[in-house]
């Protein structure tokens, strides 16, 4: 099921022509090899409302990536997230869970520290991910944060309890769309240094969850500062293995 496309751009033209003109006017995209970066996503997603997408960074990319932007060409809001990547921690993988509305290219554009653009993409078949009703259980409170680490601390998953309403879901009580309400900004530090800063939107799934994998154990403490589109603020701190799977309550 899971496959990574090898073509730099499986869907030339279409939405991407507009997007690239808007975000990267008059810029050229480098010819990159799999070893630098690749995008992994299921060719046919088992769950359009929570499709796993992984960005893998090769040795050549470590410490050389300044910013990565993730796009889903055919989603109503194609920019999924913009990530400013810290250089202190060598990151080999960043995972997302995203809503995919219909068949589309999912693409990552990396801006390197020397100002070049590199692009990779994958093709995903899906239907209805943006309008799918909330699925996860309703227990818990908005802003609860959960950290989970694995692989001797080299991987860390961070989840925020939040409906992340896309604006395309229907309120069963009224039959009208639920207005968008989403986690807009997250800043993670590790051992006092920037790990990653993420600007995100409505294409991120309910209960936004990211996973960061590094070559070395991720420095602790890890702190999270987040805010949503209604300007609610959430924060949490994780102190390492002793805190395994511990939820730190957010503040509002």
């Amino acid at each position: 099921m899971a496959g990574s496309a090898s073509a730099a751009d499986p869907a030339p033209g279409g939405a991407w022509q507009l997007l690239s003109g808007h975000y990267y006017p008059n810029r050229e995209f480098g010819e990159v090899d799999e070893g630098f970066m690749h995008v992994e996503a299921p060719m046919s997603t088992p769950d359009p409302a929570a499709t796993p997408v992984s960005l893998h960074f090769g040795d050549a990319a470590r410490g050389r990536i300044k910013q990565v932007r993730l796009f889903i060409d055919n989603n109503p809001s194609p920019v999924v997230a913009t990530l400013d990547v810290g250089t202190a921690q060598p990151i080999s993988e960043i995972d997302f869970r995203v809503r995919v509305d219909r068949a589309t290219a999912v693409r990552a554009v990396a801006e390197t520290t020397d100002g070049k653009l590199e692009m990779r993409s994958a093709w995903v078949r899906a239907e209805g991910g943006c309008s799918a009703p909330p699925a996860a259980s309703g227990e818990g409170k908005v802003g609860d944060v959960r950290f989970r680490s694995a692989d001797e601390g080299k991987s860390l998953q961070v989840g925020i309890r939040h409906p992340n309403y896309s604006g395309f879901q229907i309120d069963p009580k009224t039959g009208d769309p639920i207005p968008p309400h989403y986690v807009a900004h997250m800043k993670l530090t590790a051992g006092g240094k920037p790990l990653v800063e993420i600007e995100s939107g409505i294409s991120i799934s309910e209960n936004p969850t990211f996973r960061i994998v590094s070559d070395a154990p991720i420095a602790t403490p890890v702190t999270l500062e987040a805010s949503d589109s209604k300007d609610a603020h959430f924060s949490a701190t994780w102190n390492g293995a002793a805190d395994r799977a511990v939820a730190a309550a957010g503040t509002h």
Partner: protein
Amino acid sequence: MVRRVACALALASCAATAAPLKVDEVARGVFVHQGATLVLDAPGHDDIANIGFVVGQRCVAVIDTGGSVRTGRALRESISAHTKLPVCYVINTHVHVDHVLGNAAFKDDKPAFVGSAALGPAIEASRRYFVEHYPDDVETSAQIVGPDTAVATTRELDLGGRTLTLRAFPKAHTDSDMTVFVGDVGLLWTGDLLFIGRVPALDGSAKGWLAAIDELAKTHPKFVVPGHGPVSHDLAAALAPERRYLETLVEGVRKEIADGKPIEDATAHVGQSEKANWQLFDTANAHNVSLVYRELEWE
């Protein structure tokens, strides 16, 4: 072939002469049409659920109406072939397309449309999706008929000489599950709380579904009509594979979460030991696992 083309061009006029659905009288006055084992985008996908009707002395209750107005009309023809009594109730066991899209075929009977208290909101939330994704099965949004009679916990319906007992469940297969018990013949119509043969499809809560299975297992009906699959005479035996499957998912996903594995690892591995036990396994298992993961990761 010519007739099929004509049907496609003039669905409405063709529907008036729809061939009756094949139904079996599985218990006195209880007629069941067993749906086909097909995926939701295959030809014939509008006839995959078990649907049917119960005939009383005064009137008829329909239980689920199929995945298209066309299927609903064919079911209406079957009823006409068996009785001239009016249809007084149309009961939906939950919100899924294969059980509700035929409702419009019964509007002219002016029945009470009956469902779990959560069914009406669930249909409102899905109305646009149904029209956009099943344009061959339902022509307009107005043809998607929701309930006008809501069941919060239990309710009895009198058909004249026989009583149906309806029971609504908390979130399980979906958030709008309801069973129908025909007491005089000891028949339990489970809707999709029970799948026999076809892999169970989760759209609610795995924990809730297991709790619903525990509740159903406390009853001892003589006949069991599942949402999908053949009629059974042994509820405990019919529930066992489904319970085992759902427990396999819950235990497997809990372990993946505890081991720090991401959702894509869980969808790739969990439940595979059950593959040989179910029809259409690969069309639903990964989605089920993804939903279980999202349900359990905040435990």
